[in-house]
């Protein structure tokens, strides 16, 4: 799920940037530092949307660097148990398949793949119904539901299921939905 939240961060800046473009520099550093990062609590920082406030800088003893407390708005993405996600399959094996929803890695084990879909090894491994009408392989688009997550300080992993109504294949490789 996406959230628009306010976060704070202390940015350290070298004195050579002090000048008319100080604010720009801080903003670009902020974006560089936080976008794409992940914290267990907030999830993945997708985009910084606004800088609310930049506090007074504090000179660090001995280095000359200055620390600015920056308060900013950003969009974060945090998966939750029970959530439905659209994802793209990245790898298929006999244990199940891996998929990605943006930055989140999801594993769907064959326990949570409908029983009428069987694993087919081969050049392009896949899960397929016996009549061949539904086929999940690498790059397939799949709608799944999160059944469990592991949240670390810097990473989030999910276990998903497609064994339910309205879950499963939504698009074949190539994006023709």
């Amino acid at each position, binding site marked *: 799920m996406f959230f628009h*939240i306010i976060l704070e961060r202390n940015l350290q800046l070298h004195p050579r940037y002090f000048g008319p473009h100080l604010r720009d520099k801080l903003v670009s550093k902020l974006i560089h530092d936080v976008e794409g990062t992940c914290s267990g609590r907030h999830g993945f920082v997708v985009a910084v949307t606004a800088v609310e406030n930049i506090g007074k800088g504090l000179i660090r003893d001995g280095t000359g660097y200055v620390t600015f407390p920056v308060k900013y708005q950003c969009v974060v993405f945090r998966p*939750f148990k*029970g959530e439905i996600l659209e994802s793209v399959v990245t790898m298929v094996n006999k244990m199940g398949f891996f998929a990605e929803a943006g930055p989140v890695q999801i594993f769907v084990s064959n326990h*949570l793949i409908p029983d009428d879909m*069987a694993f087919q090894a081969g050049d392009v491994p896949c899960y397929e119904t016996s009549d061949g009408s539904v086929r999940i392989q690498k790059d397939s688009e799949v709608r799944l539901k999160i059944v*469990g997550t*592991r949240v670390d300080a810097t990473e989030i*992993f999910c276990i998903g299921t497609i064994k339910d109504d309205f879950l499963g294949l939504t698009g074949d490789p190539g994006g023709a939905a």
Partner: protein
Amino acid sequence: MSSIGSVPASPSPSASPSSSASDDFAALVEEEILAGSPFHSSPDSDLFNEKEAQRVDEDEIIDHENEDDDGFEDKENESLENESTDSEPGASDFELQRKRLRSSEVVLGKRQRGVDDLQFNSDNDDKIEASVGRGGSCPPHPGFMWGVCIRCGVMKPSDDSIENGVALRYIHEELELSRKEAARLRQDELKQILSKRKLYLILDLDHTLLNSSRFQEVPPEEQTFLTAFFQGAGSGEDGKSTKASEENTGPDLTTAEQNSGVQAGREGLYMLPSFHMWTKLRPFVHRFLEQASNMFEMYVYTMGERAYALAMAQLLDPSGRYFKGRVISKADSTHRNIKDLDVVLSAESAVVILDDTEGVWPRHRDNLIVMERYHFFTSSCRHFGLESSLSREHKDESESEGGLATALKVLHSVHETFFHDFDQVREDCIGSSDPVKDVRQVIPSLRAKILMGCRIVFSRIFPVGLANPESHPLWQLAEALGAQCVASIDDSVTHVVALDRGTDKARWAKQNGRFLVHPSWIDAAYYRWCCPHEEDFPVADVQTKYMKLSFSKTVDICL
């Protein structure tokens, strides 16, 4: 990074991975409402276990069931306001909290409305619990990925020790399966693979498919030879690749090879600077893999390190079509210095193993086809106490009559016999779904045909006074090969095995026109899977240890 609700100076919540309880969105919101802070991780949250989270979840749904949507929203906001006065959020915090809750309201609202909502229908949750499939429900958990159960999604309980499971790092770094689940997968797989008329083949790397030698173990004269051989006197393609290796960026090197700095020479000789190593692929290996892949799903299983195993797999199978994702190395083994099929997701009745070392497979000897060791490099021979090497003699195994060509023939017969019997048994008992045929019967039965019809007498092979010669390894080997061993000479004896010509039995053989062979004749039969020409294994006048360079045919290398 610090959230608004907590003290700004506090570091990111790296202290402890938060419990899965807080991953459940509803539980998280509940928690927040209690604590009055977004994403607040209460100290209790780590003590939360999944069941409690679930309970909180359900309580919540029950709580709200009697309220209409508006009432629900009001309640949430109220509780937010009430609670947040206890903590000390700033104005913007409050805004944020409202925002956060607005998005959560959507979710909770949906949860609560339930009936016709697909996504957060609580009934749906129950259905998942009930329909968890491919047999059984949690616990016991079938396995864990990233420490999360692959069926029910709970965190791995701390008391669920690794002893109950098999880590399958070669499939995925973080995957671990219970033994029961592994057994289930094996049975599932077996049906599938048999329907494709395939079996499993486990391939050892060193001395079976290839031979490697570290740079520093290569003697100077061998170095000269290798360099010449590597670059080739070359014409055509060979010449091109030589040039390429010198410049280190050849158009005919694959990208992967360029990245790892691997340089390809002639006839499967490679230089791997990152490993400080020469590697020579066994002649015939590419044809072998191609043809074996039609009959088998193949694994590589080596006692080498993972990086080495993957580098070798890359040389043997650049496109990854033979054993991608099925490369098992030292770290994957469940026992030190022992290879076991427990890490292989294949039914043992359908596995053929190709390895040069019988000792590492204590549980699976009947699955094993022992390969004659491929020693190309001198250092490799020295490790086994042998004097000469193919490289030193400027020789290599023959393509058509080398170890791998022999192995391929054996694999063909194993496959053919297995499925011939398989089909027959299936016809005999239609409806029975038992795994009907076992490779562990097929391999010994084929082996027992090799020396069938030979009656062997041993002459001074065994220590004097050995109580029961039947237990001697050579006796047992000969019998496993289908020969009949007898203790004393009679008319039916066909072969006398001796170390020198001077014994009574050896003389009897000469006088009566029976074969007199050196004991290595039996070894040759074992490795070559045929009755070897007796003339190639003569017995000298005086006792010799007789060491052949190779039972397989060798050919000269022309520089």
